[in-house]
C-alpha cells in the first residue's frame, strides 16, 4: 500500500537580508506578511563558557539584570509594555553555555517600541538600576536553580558529564551554577563581567514577521546606530580533555531508579562531522528497528528507555547514550549490550534505508520547527553569531542529505572510542546497583568541584 519515500524534501532557506551597522551590530531581516506580528530577537554572544573561576553563574545573572531597568525603561516595564500591547514570549531571556538570547513576539504595530526598548538596554547596560534589585535577581536565580537542578533527580548529571569530558579549566558549565559566585558578586563585579559582552559588535538583532524591510532597517539604524562599539570580544575554545575510559558514580537521594549514561566528546555547531554524528544517533535509536532499540527493548527486554543523541554547543558537543533499566535489570548487562551494538555499528555500514530515514526527518524538522517566528530569529542569529552565516542551518541540512553509509561508519569509528565517560546514576547509598562494580570507579561527590556540585 505504501511505498518507501525515495527523495528527501528540499529545504528552502528562509529569505534573509543582512545589514552590518558601522558599530559592528549585525541586523537580520526575514519578512513574512502572513500574520500581523513580528518576532524580535537580540542575541548576545556570552554564556557560561565565558565565565572564569570566581565568575560562575554571572552570565545568567546578567540576563536577569537586563530586565531591571535601563535609562528610559523602569524595572519590569519591558515585559509589561509588551504584554499589555498584545505581545508574548515563551521565556523573554535564555542563557546557555554560549549565548544569551532575548526575544519576544509582538503585534507589528509594536515593532518600533520594542526595538527602542531593546536598544535602550543595549545603550548603557547595567547602569540605570537600583542596586537593591541585585538581591531580588539572586533570589529568583536561587529558586530557579532549586527548581531546575537541585530538586530534580540527577539534576547535575549534564554539568558533571561536561566537567569530566571537557576538563576542569573551562568546562562547559551549567549556566545555572551553584550560587556561590552569584551570591558574593557585588553590583560592580556583575557589571564588570557583563558589560564588555553587551556591546553592539558582540550582538545580533534579528527580526522575522510583518514589516517593510526599508522602514524596519531605518528603525534599527535609528535606535541602535548610535550605540558605541565596544572592545573586541574573544571566547575560550573548548577542547575535549578526557583520555581513556572514566567510570563514575553519581548518587542522588532524589533518584528513584538507576540510570546509565555513556557519553563521548562530540563536536560543535559548525563542525562538518555534526550531521554525521546525528545520523549515527538515528541509526542507533531512530525507530524500533534501530540497533539499540531492537536489542535492548524488543529482543532482550532489558530497558524501558534508550536514546542516543548528539548535543552541540558552539564549539564542543556530546554524543550520549542514555538507558533506564526495565525492572531490576543490572546496569552492567545493559552496558554489555550497548557495547556490542556500538561494536557492530563500527564494524559495518548502516543501510541506505536507515540513512535515508534520518535525512528525511532532518529536512522535515528543519521546516516544521521554523514555523514560529521566535524560532526563526533564534536560528538565524545562531548561524550568524557562530558561523557568520544566518542560513547555516539550511546548508547543514543540505550537507546531511549527501551523507553516505560509509561516512557514518567512518564517524562511528572516529568518535565512539574508549575515551568516554560511563556514568552510573543510582539512588543515594545504592552503590551495589552501579554498572560493573568490579572495575575502578570515582564517586562524583569526591571529584566534582564546588562549582559543579550542588
Amino acid at each position, binding site marked *: 500500500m505504501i511505498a518507501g519515500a525515495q527523495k528527501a524534501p528540499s529545504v528552502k532557506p528562509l529569505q534573509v537580508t543582512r545589514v552590518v551597522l558601522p558599530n559592528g551590530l549585525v541586523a537580520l531581516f526575514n519578512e513574512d506578511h502572513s500574520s500581523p506580528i513580528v518576532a524580535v530577537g537580540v542575541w548576545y554572544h556570552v554564556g557560561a563558557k565565558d565565565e572564569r573561576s570566581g565568575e560562575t553563574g554571572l552570565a545568567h545573572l546578567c540576563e536577569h539584570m537586563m530586565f531591571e531597568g535601563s535609562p528610559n525603561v523602569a524595572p519590569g516595564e519591558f515585559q509589561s509594555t509588551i504584554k499589555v500591547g498584545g505581545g508574548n514570549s515563551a521565556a523573554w531571556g535564555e542563557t546557555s553555555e554560549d549565548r544569551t538570547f532575548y526575544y519576544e513576539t509582538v503585534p507589528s504595530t509594536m515593532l518600533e517600541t520594542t526595538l527602542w526598548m531593546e536598544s535602550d538596554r543595549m545603550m548603557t547596560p547595567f547602569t540605570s538600576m537600583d542596586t537593591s534589585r541585585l538581591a531580588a535577581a539572586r533570589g529568583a536565580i536561587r529558586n530557579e536553580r532549586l527548581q531546575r537542578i537541585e530538586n530534580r533527580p540527577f539534576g547535575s548529571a549534564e554539568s558533571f558529564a561536561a566537567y569530566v569530558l571537557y576538563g576542569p579549566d573551562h568546562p562547559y558549565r551549567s549556566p545555572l551554577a551553584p550560587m556561590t559566585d552569584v551570591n558574593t558578586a557585588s553590583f560592580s563585579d556583575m557589571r564588570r563581567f557583563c558589560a564588555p559582552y553587551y556591546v553592539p559588535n558582540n550582538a545580533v538583532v534579528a527580526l522575522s514577521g510583518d514589516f517593510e524591510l526599508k522602514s524596519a532597517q531605518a528603525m534599527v539604524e535609528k535606535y541602535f546606530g548610535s550605540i558605541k562599539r565596544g572592545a573586541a570580544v574573544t571566547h575560550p575554545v573548548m577542547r575535549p580533555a578526557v583520555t581513556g575510559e572514566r567510570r563514575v558514580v553519581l548518587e542522588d537521594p*532524589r533518584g528513584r531508579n538507576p540510570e546509565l549514561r555513556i557519553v563521548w566528546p562530540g563536536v560543535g555547531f559548525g563542525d562538518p562531522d555534526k550531521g554525521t554524528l546525528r545520523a549515527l544517533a538515528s541509526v542507533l535509536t531512530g525507530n524500533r528497528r534501530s540497533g539499540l532499540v531492537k536489542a535492548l527493548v524488543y529482543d532482550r527486554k532489558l530497558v524501558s528507555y534508550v536514546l542516543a543523541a548528539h548535543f552541540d554547543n558552539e564549539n564542543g558537543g556530546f554524543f550520549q547514550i542514555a538507558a533506564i533499566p526495565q525492572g531490576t535489570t543490572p546496569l552492567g548487562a545493559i552496558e554489555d549490550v550497548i557495547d556490542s551494538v556500538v561494536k557492530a555499528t563500527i564494524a559495518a555500514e548502516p543501510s541506505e534505508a536507515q540513512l535515508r530515514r534520518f535525512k528525511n526527518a532532518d529536512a522535515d524538522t528543519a521546516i516544521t520547527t521554523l*514555523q514560529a517566528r521566535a524560532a526563526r530569529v533564534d536560528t538565524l542569529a545562531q548561524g550568524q553569531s557562530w558561523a557568520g552565516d544566518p542560513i547555516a542551518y539550511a546548508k547543514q541540512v543540505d550537507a546531511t542529505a549527501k551523507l553516505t553509509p560509509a561516512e557514518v561508519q567512518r564517524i562511528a569509528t572516529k568518535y565512539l572510542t574508549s575515551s568516554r565517560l560511563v556514568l552510573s546514576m543510582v539512588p543515594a547509598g545504592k552503590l551495589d546497583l552501579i554498572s560493573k562494580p568490579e572495575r575502578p570507579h570515582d564517586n562524583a561527590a569526591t571529584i566534582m568541584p564546588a562549582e559543579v556540585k550542588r
Partner: protein
Amino acid sequence: MNRLTQVAFAVATLGFGGPAVAQARPKPPSPKPAPAYAFPKVQTQTLPNGLVVHVIEDHALPLVAVRAVIEGGSLVDPAGKEGLFTLDTLLLRDGTTRLSGDALADAISDLGASVAPSGFTTVTDQLERSLAIMGDMLMHPAFPAEALDRRRTGLLASLQRSEGQPGTPANRIWSAVVFGPDHPLGRVASPTTLASITIDDISRFHAEHVRPQNVTLVMVGDIVPASAMALAMKVFSGWQRSGERVVVNAPPAPAPKPTTIYLFDRPGLSQSTIYLGQAGPGRSAADAYALEVASFVFGGQSGSRLWAQLRDRRPLTYGITHVTFWRGANDPSRILGFSNVDAAKTDSALIVWMNELKELATGRAPTEQEVAFGRSVTAGNLAARLETFDSIANQLARMTSDHVGMSYLDGYVRGVYAATPAEVGRAAAHYFDPAHTAIVIVGDRKRIEAPLREANIAPVVIVDANGKVLQ
C-alpha cells in the same frame, strides 16, 4: 520621580561615570492598536460515515498540520481500568492488519515526519501518504498481544520516572481531593489499573468507541478545502459507522470541602510543591469570560498579583501560576494554582498566597488597569500565540473536544473585552473561594509540618501518594 532624575539617581548611587550617563532619548510614538484578532475561517464537512472534517486553508508555508480527535478520550475509561484509552492509542502504533509493527515503524520513518494516531505535521507533498498511515492505524489495528506487555511496562516505567517530579503526586492528590474517587477527573492510571487491562479490553474498547462517528479530523495549512475533504473521503470512507455520535461530558464536581492542607511527605526535597484551588464552572457559564480575566489578574505570571508578591517583592519562588484551566463547555474546570517554593519558606509563601486569595475574594477587587492587563494577556495576544499551523490545529482540536463550536474564539475575544471590572470582581469573589480551597503540599514533612501548623492557615492532614488521609 521622572525618568531623568531616576537615571541621575542611579548613576550617583553606583558611582559610575563615563558611558553610564545616558542620553535621554525620546520615546517613539505610541504604537497604534494591534488589529483585532479573528480566528481563521473553518470549513466543515461530515463524511457519510459520520466522521467530521474541519479545514483551515493557509498557504503561507508548504506544511499541513493534521489532528484526529476521539470524543471523550480518557474520560471514557471504565472505573478500575484507568489507562485503557492511553494503552489503546499506544498499541495502534504496534502494527495494523496490513503492516507488521516493524513495517509500520519503517513506513513512518520513511516519511520523516512522526505520524501518530492522534496526528502529525508534514510537508505538503507527504500529506496523502501520512494520512493513509494515520488512517490505517485508527481503522485497522492489529493489537498484537506481545505489544501489550511491552507498552504496559513502558508506561509503568514512565509513570515511575514522572513520580520523581513532585508535581506528579501533587497534581494527582489535588484531583483526588477535589473530585473524589467517584469522579473520572479524580481517578488516574496506576500500576493496579494498568495490570487489570487485557488485550481483549483494548480491542473491544476500540471496536465500540473509536468509530468514525466519534472522530473529528482537523487539517490546517497548505491545502484547498475541497482537496482536503476528498482526501479524507479517500482514506476514511471505508470505515463503518456504528450507531450515533456520543457526547462525553464530565459530571459536576462534588461539593467543595472546607479549606484544608493535605501534606504528602517526601523527605529531602529542597523545595515544596504546592497545588492549590477548587473546581470551577464550565466554559458555557455566563460569567466564564469574567472569570478568565480575573484568573490572569490574580495568577497569570509576570504582571499578576501573585507574581508581584511571591517573586518580585519577595524571592519565594521562581514562578507561580494560578488560573482557570478549562475543559468542556459543560465540564467542571479547575481553578488551580501551582508553584515550587523554597522549603524553608513554605509557611511564609502560603501565608502570602492565601492572603492574596482573601484579598481578591473580599477586599481588593480588580482595578480598571488590572482588567486591561487581564484582557491583554488572554484575548489580546492571540495573534502571537496562535502563530503556527501546529498551534492553530491544536486549538481546533481543543475546541472540538471541549464542545464549544468553531466560532468559539471570536466569542471569547468579544466576551473578554466586554467583561467590566465589576463583573470581573464578582466572578473573582464567587469562584476564588478561600474558605473552600484544597491545598496540597508535597515536601519534606520534617522541615515544613511544624511551621505550617503554627501558621494556622488551615487544618493540616497527612495524606498518602493518592490523597488518602493517614492522620
